[in-house]
């Protein structure tokens, strides 16, 4: 046990010494990590913003089911309760005939004469759905159209929905591919940067193995160095990202005021924490694999 503690102390000291001994290499590795992680995190932020925009547009897509005048209120209520439970449905609102009339009057003030001539309210009551996921709209519309005894017609802005779904799908697939590709490139670049540092010390590794060092004794300092480089680089990336986001998000929101951007503190905090974790994992795992080939002595 004491031997392990001594070894641990030595490994930590060697890691600190390794970082300090070659500052150019250390700074280079940190800068590389920072640049790669800023790129990755910026893309994640852009991708998330795009998804938020698409979702927000989806919420503006409503389904309106016009209720027959002779429909049983209890049946309508039951259908509304059922719709509220459905996945992808955000909000279910009942618009009475009187509400519809009021809206008509407010919107079409110059056509009040039409209502005076009719003397009765010709507008039907309706059930309006505001969606969380517009993808379920077409199927839901078909289902409601099948309830002919309750609804006289169902209106869906189907072309808008289809375009949104198309954008959302492309955004999701492209986003996933880009995140995976960028993560791989980040890992590749960081691993190669660390590999240069390991290569410079290959003789030291070989000698340590030949005088009886365990793999972990040799590998430990490199893994710790990689983790430190990863965390420092990622922290710089995260801070840069937080500052940039705080500056840029209000500007973008002002320009595109009708679309919300994911700029809340929670999102930015999660992105920063994620970036630091990626830096830690990529740095330490990268070092682990960089040293491996030199351990086969």
């Amino acid at each position: 046990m004491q031997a392990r503690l001594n070894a641990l102390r030595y490994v930590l000291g060697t890691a600190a010494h390794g970082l300090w001994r070659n500052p150019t290499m250390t700074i280079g590795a940190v800068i590389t990590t920072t640049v790669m992680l800023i790129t990755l995190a910026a893309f994640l932020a852009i991708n998330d913003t795009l998804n938020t925009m698409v979702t927000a547009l989806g919420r503006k897509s409503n389904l309106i089911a016009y209720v027959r005048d002779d429909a049983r209120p209890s049946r309508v209520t039951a259908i509304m309760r059922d719709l509220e439970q459905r996945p992808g449905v955000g909000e279910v609102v009942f618009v009475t005939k009187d509400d519809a009339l009021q809206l008509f009057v407010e919107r079409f003030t110059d056509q009040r004469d039409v209502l005076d001539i009719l003397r009765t309210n010709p507008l039907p009551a309706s059930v309006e759905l505001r969606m969380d996921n517009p993808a379920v709209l077409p199927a839901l519309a078909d289902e409601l159209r099948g309830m002919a005894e309750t609804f006289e017609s169902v209106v869906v802005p189907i072309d808008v929905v289809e375009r949104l779904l198309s954008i959302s799908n492309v955004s999701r697939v492209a986003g996933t591919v880009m995140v995976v590709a960028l993560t791989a490139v980040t890992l590749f670049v960081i691993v190669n940067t660390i590999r240069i540092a390991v290569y410079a010390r290959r003789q030291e590794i070989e000698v340590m193995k030949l005088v009886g060092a365990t793999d972990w004794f040799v590998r430990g300092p490199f893994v710790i160095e990689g983790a430190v480089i990863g965390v420092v680089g990622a922290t710089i990336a995260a801070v840069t990202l937080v500052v940039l986001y705080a500056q840029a998000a209000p500007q973008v929101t002002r320009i595109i005021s009708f679309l919300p951007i994911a700029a809340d503190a929670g999102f930015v905090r999660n992105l920063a924490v994620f970036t630091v974790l990626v830096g830690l994992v990529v740095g330490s795992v990268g070092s682990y694999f960089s040293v491996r080939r030199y351990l086969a002595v």
Partner: protein
Amino acid sequence: MIVLQDVCKNYEDSAALADVSLSIARGEFAFLIGTNGAGKTTLLRVLLREESFDSGSVLVNGVDVASVRGAALTNFRRKIGMVFQDTRLLPNATVRENVGLPLRVRGHATRDIDAAVADVLERTVLADKAQRFPRQLSGGEQRKVALARAIIAKPEVLLCDEPTDSINPVHAREIVELLLDINSEGVTTLVATHDSEIVNDLRRRVIRMEGGQVLADEPVGVFSAG
């Protein structure tokens, strides 16, 4: 005890070891002589398991060198001290750090390492060089540092590859006396050399190699023999 049986090792276009069979008893002292390319270094590297071999068997203190892996390999190497031909001292470490490395990797406390290093540097007449870096030492001093590193952990087997090559006679004599001293403590010692003066002076067992083969094995040999 070191036992080699029909050991073969081939590089792309030549045989480094060709059916080498020999046995060295525990505590024995033996010279391995031969011209450059005779197979001496390859044989030492095989004994440390730094190099693999193609066929035959190698036993060092009962350990089958061909199959030793992982933690067992680490433990195996901890019982062997090796003086490399090119010394392989760490250029960025001081003499004290280089010599203490075998104990450091075993997890010894710094206080114990410092005491052991001071002891072995005293023995190798390097006490005043403890804080120097290898580049600040002469060739002979570097060899002695390499020897100090090899013996600090009290190995059962000591392998030396040309320990007196290209150094002045004073350092060479010091190194030889140290080797004899270490061997007298029961450490099996195998020294690869082409220093005829030392071999002829000591009149110990001589194993002559050429072209990867053992040409002669004489209990009390001289360099010029054969």
